[in-house]
């Protein structure tokens, strides 16, 4: 079957899958960013309990597979009385997984802000919270944006796994089409191309744009 006919018949299903993938991506990204910020700051905290919790979270999620985490959250958490719908379980696991990698980026970026900036803020008698918010974090943000671009592409790729708990994302639709038609090259091939387009022509340019905006706001453009 020519690829055009294939797309005419199954294009709508692929498109609906792409929408679900985009939704998963955005929700997981929000969770990842929030959790990365909390755990990254937590790891630098003076409080041993907060530091310990952050370290355990980071090591546990970085040390195991996303798929293991996904299955654990979907199949085992209900035994503890917390049942998440598959759509929620999907983006929560992906978000928590990527958040643990992001936490290390946050921590590294905060530690790379020059010492003079910390001292200057201290000399101006800023409170620690204010110093973090107004002086350190904006500069750390500029440092960590490029690696976050890569991480968000990893996150997009991670969302493909939610198909394995039957979230009807792009990967799931490609699998379904393959199962009913055996047009494997067309089904999986077009899904690959769609993921590539999302990563290369949406996420990457968006992150480049963000880098420029942040550089301008910091007066470095």
């Amino acid at each position, binding site marked *: 079957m020519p690829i055009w006919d294939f797309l005419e018949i199954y294009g709508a299903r692929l498109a609906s899958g792409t929408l679900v993938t985009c939704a998963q991506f955005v929700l997981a990204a929000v969770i990842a960013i929030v959790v990365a910020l909390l755990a990254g700051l937590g790891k630098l905290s003076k409080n041993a309990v907060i530091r310990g919790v952050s370290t355990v979270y980071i090591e546990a999620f970085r040390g*195991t597979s*996303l798929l293991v985490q996904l299955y654990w959250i979907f199949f085992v958490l209900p035994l503890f009385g917390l049942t998440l719908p598959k759509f929620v379980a999907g983006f929560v696991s992906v978000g928590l997984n990527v958040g643990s990698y992001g936490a290390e980026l946050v921590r590294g970026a905060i530690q790379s802000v020059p010492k003079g900036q910390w001292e200057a803020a201290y000399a101006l008698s800023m409170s620690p919270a204010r110093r973090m918010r107004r002086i350190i974090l904006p500069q750390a943000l500029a440092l960590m944006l490029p690696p976050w671009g890569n991480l968000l592409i990893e996150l997009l790729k991670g969302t493909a796994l939610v198909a394995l708990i039957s979230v009807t994302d792009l990967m799931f639709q490609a699998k379904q089409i393959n199962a009913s038609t055996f047009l494997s090259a067309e089904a999986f091939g077009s899904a690959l191309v769609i993921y590539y387009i999302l990563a290369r022509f949406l996420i990457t340019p968006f992150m480049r744009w963000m880098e420029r905006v942040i550089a301008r706001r910091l007066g470095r453009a």
Partner: protein
Amino acid sequence: MSFNWRWDFTWEILPRLLLATLNTLIAAGAGYAIALVLGLILALAQRTGWRPITVAVREFVEFIRSTPLVLQIFFVFYVGPQFGIRLSPWTSGMIAIGLHYSAYLSEVYRAGIDAVPRGQWEACRALNMSTRDTYVRIVIPQALPPSIAGMGNYLVGIFKDTPMLSVIGVAELMHTANAIGSESYRFLEPFTLVGLIYLAISLPTAGLIRLFEGWVRRKLGM
């Protein structure tokens, strides 16, 4: 069903899971071996200076890096038979995972080679060394130590990505845990054990890689 951890069940399934861990390690090792070699080829292909090859390889690497591994595994496994090539789950799994990580490793190699100062290349030129000697005796030994951290990260990465092979029926750890779960309707113990086994292997490995990196640096007098 509620939360109750059963130790007798744990001891019953642990040997089976440990056996599957062996499969996981073999899969990770074989995939990594493919990725190491293929990655070097991809990295060197980008240095040939012949533009069409450089651009094509570059795009290929970008494509592999920005699409999901599960999808690539499915692609390799299902597309072959459509054209009359039948691959076993193991073979297609190794091809997919090896190819995926070769793209990542080629970037590590590339960064390592780029980090070798220009003067080193020029010195080789001045000493009239052949290209082969330049790479083997001067460039690669210096490109290696800064690459080890990245290479090690991807070794742990490939190990953590092997569960994806379960989707095409490679009997590794996750596949076995799934099978145990559907036989006994107990998911708590198998999935938790799988998580713990992964932690027990990947955390020490990450530590060992750091030690190894220090050892190589000292060996090369850096």
